[in-house]
């Protein structure tokens, strides 16, 4: 007789005492087929809790016998509760467990059926069917004989129960009368595990879009061989997330394609809602074909060869019915990624049951809405482990990364895209649908587009929140900062729809200057980058104005699409507030729009919008009030105070040596005050007309279909130059590339020249926009401010040696952390915007950056 044991689950041994359960298991251990730790025996647990394996309560005085029997019952109860806890733990961990006890009564066995259901593992019974004589014979020989009466009693029960066992719902029941004639085999690997070997390309919902599928496979590098099979030269395989059929044009052709490729071990496919429906239909079940499934039946009708079709139907039925609920991809045996159609719970991963199949097919759903469509619940929020889950089923405009899950159903059948996720490379490859094949109502991509600008759900933010960023992983925003930021967004910022990006803060040099008379110097910035393995850097002149984000639309209709109202754009500050008054903004937007249109910018770049990050000058444009009430006021007070004192001391000094010292001191202080007054005026000029405004863009963040974080800063600077040629409002920014020591010297000299002329300073960046060192993000930019400029930051006397010494003890750690997080949040938000994700998802990043900025940092940094 052959016994096949599952990979994981419960193996229940059934039989009276002396039927040979333990002996049989011992044989298996000896043969190396099972491990001692896989056996849970009630006898062993009795010993563990009480030191006693057996109590004989028969043949005693009645009172003694009763007492012993009570003891035995208590010990058994404790032993069983521990034993069951252990079994449940092993089930949760998806292990195989042999339970060695008599299991004569139905209630004893029912417990395990329940465990199996609860933990989604199969239960198998091995029934040791030995006749009574043998049992009695064996009992006499054992150390603690149970006694004839008890054995006979047990056998009676066993005989009665035997015929019911099969119907109790086990995966398999084996009756063993002779253990020597039994062959045991077991599955040693999880059937849901797939080793990635040369790589796997996971493909989203195809829905019969055969042409797009072929195009995608070709794009992924698969080549058609002589047998019409698509094979990858590097041995990669492709894996479908299900729903390969229904709704689209060529369901049957697509199903046959997968049938052959899976049979040839070139591809994999998992179960799905449509797949299951078709499988049951093919199986002759009474199902109603709707939601595009009726098109599959239509396909079969069109099929000419009637004989072949029955054969194909049969093959497809088997193929679809046995498609696994999900696959777990492993790297050298270690699970790293899960593929499922509609969703999965963490505790389901690697297990099989009807409940799991159901969940993987339909996701987490709760009733239906007014139009009869299922209300989908968000299962992704419950995903807690590090395993990446790739899923489809619910069409999103672009791959949607949430909480370590990726949705790659981009609704090809609805006119969207067919996406592949290359693993382990983690790259997306997509092809555009040739058309919208499902011209029905409720196109989910359209619905999403319509809802894109819906106001963000405040519940997601008010308790504090976490943003998953591609560049820096999870970024936590604590509740207190979230609340004050929501307050600010509710009062002061431009509307949420237009507030798509907040620029990150920037750290000054990580170390202060080693030179005696400097607080900051380019050397420390360059050294920082060299120590981070950056060889090529770009040094850009840093303008002194106010940061401005320009979200510029091709026309006002595009404005309606992106921000919900007809407008040519929006310009806002780094706190999210409108940069100009409405009238000026309107004027500037039209002016820029005309210039860009005149240069055919939008058409040439095939974009609906341009998002840029810029410095807008002069400083007084935004800061006139601050300059007048703070900087000018301080300058006047300082010069008045110091000037009067200088004169007074001078008039009394005569030959007094001590007064002469005070005089020198006040002459210097007066000079400092004059430098201060001079410096802040450098960044100010009268604005009588728009032309006096200067906009210096330094990052072209995005067009409607792409971001530019993959472009080097030299590209961004050249683009900026191009803008300055299109409109006089845009000004070019000087920059230099640092390659070697000679360049370094040149940059330092340049910095020295422009800053002694009063310019703010320079910004040094790695040439690549997103730079990493040993896999970790490094500062995207470091500012190096000039000696003169710093008078208006650190105070007019900051260079006095006793002041500078103390000021050099600054710490930029927190500033740098903020800079990195805000940088990652910024990129993430724009990526989401470009992917057509909801404004709520974009807002999450924006709110995150704004909240980071309400965490106080030394404002002088």
């Amino acid at each position, binding site marked *: 007789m052959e016994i096949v044991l599952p990979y994981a689950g419960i193996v229940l041994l059934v039989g009276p005492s002396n039927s040979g359960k333990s002996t049989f298991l011992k044989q298996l251990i000896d043969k190396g087929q099972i491990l001692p730790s896989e056996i849970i025996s009630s006898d062993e647990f009795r010993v563990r809790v009480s030191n006693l394996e057996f109590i004989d309560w028969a043949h005693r005085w009645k009172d003694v016998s009763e007492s012993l029997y009570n003891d035995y019952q208590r010990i058994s109860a404790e032993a069983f509760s521990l034993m069951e806890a252990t079994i449940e733990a092993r089930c949760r961990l998806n292990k195989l467990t042999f339970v060695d006890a008599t299991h004569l009564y139905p209630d004893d066995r029912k417990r395990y059926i329940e465990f199996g259901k609860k933990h989604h593992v199969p239960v198998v019974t091995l029934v040791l069917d030995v006749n009574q004589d043998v049992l009695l014979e064996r009992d006499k020989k054992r150390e603690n004989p149970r006694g004839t009466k008890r054995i006979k009693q047990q056998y009676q029960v066993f005989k009665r129960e035997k015929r019911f066992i099969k119907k109790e719902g086990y995966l398999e029941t084996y009756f063993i009368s002779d253990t020597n004639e039994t062959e045991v085999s077991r599955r040693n690997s999880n059937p849901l595990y797939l080793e990635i070997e040369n790589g796997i390309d996971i493909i989203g919902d195809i829905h019969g879009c055969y042409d797009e599928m072929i195009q995608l496979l070709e794009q992924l590098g698969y080549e058609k061989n002589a047998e019409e099979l698509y094979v990858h030269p590097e041995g990669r395989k492709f894996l479908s997330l299900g729903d390969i059929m229904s709704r689209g044009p060529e369901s049957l052709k697509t199903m046959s394609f997968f049938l052959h490729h899976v049979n040839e071990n070139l591809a994999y496919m998992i179960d799905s809602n449509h797949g299951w429906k078709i499988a049951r239909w093919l199986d002759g079940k009474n199902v109603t074909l709707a939601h595009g499934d009726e098109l599959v039946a239509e396909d079969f009708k069109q099929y000419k060869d009637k004989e072949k079709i029955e054969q194909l139907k049969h093959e497809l039925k088997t193929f679809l019915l046995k498609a696994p609920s999900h696959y777990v991809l492993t790297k050298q045996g270690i699970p790293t990624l899960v593929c499922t159609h509609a969703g999965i719970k963490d505790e389901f991963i690697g297990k099989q049951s009807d409940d799991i199949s159901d969940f993987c097919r339909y996701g987490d759903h709760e009733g239906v809405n007014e139009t009869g469509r299922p209300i989908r619940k968000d299962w992704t929020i419950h995903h807690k482990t590090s395993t990446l889950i790739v899923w489809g089923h619910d069409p999103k405009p672009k791959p949607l990364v949430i909480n370590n899950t990726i949705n790659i159903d981009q609704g090809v059948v609805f006119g969207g895209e067919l996406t592949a996720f290359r693993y382990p490379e983690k790259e997306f490859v997509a092809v555009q649908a040739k058309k919208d094949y499902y011209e029905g109502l409720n196109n989910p991509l359209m619905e999403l587009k319509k809802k894109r600008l819906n106001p963000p759900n405040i519940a997601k933010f008010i308790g504090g929140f976490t943003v998953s960023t591609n560049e820096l992983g999870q970024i936590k925003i604590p509740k207190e900062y979230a609340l004050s930021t929501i307050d600010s967004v509710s009062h002061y910022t431009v509307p949420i729809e237009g507030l798509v990006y907040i620029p990150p803060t920037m750290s000054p040099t990580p170390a202060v200057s080693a030179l005696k008379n400097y607080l900051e110097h380019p050397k420390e910035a360059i050294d920082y980058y060299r120590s981070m393995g950056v060889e090529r850097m770009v040094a850009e002149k840093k303008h002194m104005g106010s940061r401005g984000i320009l979200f510029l639309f091709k026309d006002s209709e595009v404005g309606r699409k992106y921000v919900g109202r007809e407008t040519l754009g929006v310009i806002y500050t780094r706190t999210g507030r409108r940069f100009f008054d409405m009238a000026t903004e309107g004027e500037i937007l039209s002016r820029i729009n005309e210039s860009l249109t005149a240069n055919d910018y939008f058409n040439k770049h095939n974009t609906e919008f341009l998002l840029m990050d810029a410095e807008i000058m002069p400083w007084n444009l935004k800061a006139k009030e601050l300059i007048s009430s703070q900087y000018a006021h301080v300058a006047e007070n300082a010069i008045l105070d110091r000037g009067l004192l200088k004169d007074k001391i001078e008039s009394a000094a005569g030959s007094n040596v*001590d007064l002469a010292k005070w005089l020198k001191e006040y002459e210097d202080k007066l000079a400092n005050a004059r430098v201060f007054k001079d410096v802040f005026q450098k960044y100010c000029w009268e604005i009588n007309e728009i032309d006096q405004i200067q906009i210096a863009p330094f990052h072209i963040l995005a067009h409607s279909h792409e971001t530019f974080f993959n472009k080097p800063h030299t590209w961004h600077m050249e683009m900026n130059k191009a803008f300055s040629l299109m409109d006089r409002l845009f000004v070019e920014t000087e920059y230099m590339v640092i390659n070697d020591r000679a360049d370094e010297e040149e940059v330092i000299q340049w910095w020295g020249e422009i800053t002694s002329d009063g310019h703010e300073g320079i910004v040094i960046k790695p040439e690549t926009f997103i730079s990493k060192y040993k896999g970790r993000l490094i500062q995207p930019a470091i500012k190096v401010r000039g000696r003169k400029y710093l008078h*208006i930051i650190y105070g007019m006397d900051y260079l006095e040696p006793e002041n500078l010494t103390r000021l050099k003890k600054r710490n930029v750690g927190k500033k740098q952390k903020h800079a990195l997080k805000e940088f990652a949040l910024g990129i993430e938000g724009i990526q989401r915007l470009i992917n057509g994700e909801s404004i709520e998802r974009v807002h999450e990043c924006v709110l995150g950056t704004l909240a980071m900025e309400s965490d106080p940092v030394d404002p002088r940094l």
Partner: protein
Amino acid sequence: MQLTIRGTGQDVNVLSYLLAKNPNNLYERNVSGHLVRMFFSKFTDDEVEVTIFVTPDPIELSRNNSEAYDITSYINDREFAVSSIFCTFIRTALGTALNGKPTEEYEPWVNHPFSLQFSFGPVASQLTDNELLDLFQPLGYDVAITYGEVDYRMDFKRVSTARYITLEGMTTLQMGLRQLFVLIPVLDNYKHYYIDEKEVGKIERYGEGWLDQHPLREFILRRALRFEELYNLVEKQTVPELKTETEPKSRLNDLRYERIVRRVNQLNFRESIVDFGSGEGKLSEKLGFVDGVKEILAVEPSESENLKALKRYEKVVQKENFVMPKQVMGSLFYYDERLKNKDIMILCEVIEHIDEDRLPKIMRIILQEYRPRVLLLTTPNQEYNAVYGMDEGYRHPDHRFEWTREEFQTWSKKQDEESKYDISFEGIGEEHEQYGTPTQMAVFTRREV
């Protein structure tokens, strides 16, 4: 920060004894890093000039600032302007003169008036030149004011905000200094230390013999003591707050609340109410006493307003029949499922604070998602501004618009895209036959299905 005392006339060199400073020496003391310095620039039988000034340590000065996370705590006038800090710094150096306790021999001179000139500054004050004159002239001084330089390359300001004051008159050194020690902090309107009862004693001591007769006594005390409680220690009776044209407006506020409460009372379904933009909770508090109301959601994004509201509710929470409003952090720009399907939603004077083009989306969420049985919406009636004598501009600087009755009614009807509501309009406040009432209200009532 500096003070120069100049005396002329007979025996004026006695001043050095009253100050207890040797005119031949420079005085320099280090007060927690700041240098307090004094020198005589003139010293003859009939002319004495002494200057006391502070060279502060700017870093030490900014370190204890409570606003350490704002750039203005590092770049500010505190290290230059005369202020309470200055008075604290120089108090010890001028102790003898202030207390009138020179060596016994010179005691008779303490009460001897000299022809004195006090010049000090820079003064950073919100007060106008005339207000400055009004502070010093009643004390018998001739007052001269000079200004800092405003030679900027662009037009930041016409007149400098740094001033230097010179007082001239016949007075004793002690009186002159005591007056300055009271008035310099009053000018500066900024105090660097915690003001407590001791301050009251100080004012009483330094103010002796002149403050009670000063026509601006009350103003000086208020500014010097800053906090109402302290002020009341000196001035037992409470002086009513200045009230100008705010009165009709606050009455209108009450009228609005009254009307809304009355309207709510008339509604059959009033168990759950959402008060959007509840601010400091005035309306929600009143709704808490309405019969039949079981739940009030007071929605407000501002933390400071919410705190104020909480204090207000806590004052009445013990009262009978009061339903404590539930504070909900939120705003019209976010979606909040807690606000769905309530009986009544109220937007009292809210919409005019929102840019007009953002309103349709908000109204769609309210009418199609939140779906209250009744929505009450109030906003100013722009026509009525004529009654206030306003020809243009809005009633509040934050208003983004103010609508005529026709504009409001047309707009309201347009918002009910799905035609699920009956809309009626009413006025609140005293009615003018041509211009209507100051406030207008729309009542959206959901049609029963």
